[in-house]
């Protein structure tokens, strides 16, 4: 009950933030009714997808300060669970998605237990390693298509199919992920006010102090990692239905993991709006780089250079990203 109230209560934000957020929400709701290119539509869907990944990352990476560079493995588990179950047993999305979450969370507990014994950079590197190992496993696992991946055959479904989440037009996918997006924001709004949310922020600040306040630091991290994982896995399931063709290389690659972390960090790790702001900046940039620059000879890889530069600029200028700058300015004005 109180959780629900916390989720719906945004009153601790200044009116300006809420006005802006409401305007963006209205824009997102009515956008499909206005004439638009399919490029704009798919970019917006990518924006919503990556905002959600970023929100998931933000629990452990932002509020908890544990830089996680292996989120793609859970995207992969969610996407593969939904695809395989759909192909083999015609399983509805609404069943395969929770099962995917179950697999992901189980895996997150298995690797989370040893991983969170590690600190700082070692933790970050270990998350990369586990993700890459899982990707390699999927690449040689013939049952799920090996490196070719698997394709969802949309033809046999009567569209729009809300049970299996198979649609012809992007508009349907857009509204489904938009609902996920709003739920994600409400969830994160409740999370940041929850006991676990407070404990994590204390852990991020100083683990010894956190322990002295009765917080089981290791367990709090594992629990939060599972929450982050569930988020990413659910959206990964959606991603599978949306792109209909998944392979290890593009669902579980290191690029994706880095992009997820980067969006949250650029927008503002440990803040409610951060991942959304980050996705709003980076997704169009990513699409642009891919569509235009990527096509030019010799320009392959320039996106990675640009991401690298962004990481360096954030860590040098303001570790708490764009939102951190906003908060700093506000604090200065108030004091």
């Amino acid at each position, binding site marked *: 009950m109180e959780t629900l109230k916390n989720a719906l209560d945004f009153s601790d934000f200044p009116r300006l933030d809420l006005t802006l957020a409401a305007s963006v929400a209205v824009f997102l709701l009515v956008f499909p009714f206005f004439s638009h290119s399919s490029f704009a539509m798919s970019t917006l869907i990518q924006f919503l997808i990556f905002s959600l990944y970023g929100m998931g990352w933000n629990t452990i990476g932002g509020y908890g300060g544990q830089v996680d560079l292996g989120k793609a493995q859970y995207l992969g588990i969610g996407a593969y669970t939904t695809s395989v179950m759909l192909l083999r047993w015609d399983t509805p999305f609404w069943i395969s998605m929770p099962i995917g979450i179950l697999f992901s969370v189980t895996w997150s507990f298995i690797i989370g237990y040893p991983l969170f014994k590690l600190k700082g950079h070692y933790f970050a590197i270990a998350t990369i390693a586990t993700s890459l190992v899982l990707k390699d496993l999927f690449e040689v696992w013939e049952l799920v298509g090996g490196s070719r991946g698997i394709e969802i055959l949309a033809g046999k479904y009567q569209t729009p199919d809300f049970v299996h989440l198979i649609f012809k037009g992007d508009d349907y996918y857009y509204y489904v992920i938009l609902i996920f997006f709003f739920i994600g924001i409400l969830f994160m709004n409740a999370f940041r006010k929850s006991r676990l949310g407070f*404990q994590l922020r204390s852990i991020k600040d100083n683990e010894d102090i956190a322990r002295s306040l*009765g917080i089981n630091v290791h367990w709090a991290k594992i629990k939060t990692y599972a929450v982050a994982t569930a988020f990413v896995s659910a959206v990964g399931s959606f991603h599978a239905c949306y792109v209909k063709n998944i392979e290890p290389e593009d669902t579980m690659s290191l690029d994706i993991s880095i992009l997820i972390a980067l969006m949250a960090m650029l927008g503002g790790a440990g803040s409610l709006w951060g991942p959304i702001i980050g996705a709003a900046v980076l997704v169009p940039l990513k699409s642009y780089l891919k569509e235009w620059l990527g096509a030019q000879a010799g320009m392959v890889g320039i996106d990675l250079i640009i991401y690298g530069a962004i990481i360096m600029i954030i860590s040098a200028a303001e570790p708490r990203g764009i939102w951190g700058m906003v908060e700093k300015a506000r604090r200065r004005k108030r004091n």
Partner: protein
Amino acid sequence: MALLEVTNLTKRFGGLTANDAVSFEVTKGELLGLIGPNGAGKTTLFNCIAGLHPIDAGTVHFQEQNITRLASHEIARLGLARTFQIMVASGDLNVLENIMVGCFLHTGSRMKAKAEAEQILKDMELSDLGGYLVSELPVAAQKRVAMATALGTRPKLLLLDEVAAGLNPSEIEGITAIIQRIHTEMGITVMLIEHVMEMVMNLSQRVVVLDYGRKIAEGDPKLVVKDPNVIKAYLGERYAKEHL
């Protein structure tokens, strides 16, 4: 009844014995001072009791329960809270939120945690500072926030490590009054490390003196300061001349 019972506690850092077979008790309801020169092993003793360091020998009992091998969060949950000598919260939690973290130990409800934290803010005379970051506050207020955060866990025993260090005389007076209130009004047993002698003398009912990791004296503060060993080890000739 002994609330805390430390028996032959020994802690080594490589070749250095920071605590050498230290034994003492804290009785329920008392206010015990822990003094000794720099590097005597006072902070280390707190860290060993609170489960931050594994100890090499000896035992620690809290409320008759053996807590020697418990993790620090488990010890905190039993009702043993502490402040840190050098560390204060410096993250993005503001003062009120920091205290709420402590309160969340016994409630899952944000509203309850917040109400309790606000009450503690008032008791600690910090009401106006709830919205600030700890790093924005002067040292005296930071020390009070550290105490307030520990109080949030509703401790039975509170270990305070040099909460008066770096404060001016009027601030020391203020913090002395607050510690007195924690002890008498809130009924919390307190053990405090302090270099400010006036404060130790005013507050403590009993003191334990450490030197080079060993306990060299224990008892009534007025008698302990007359102990030649203590004078030699800690107080120095000058203080001895002035006060004895």
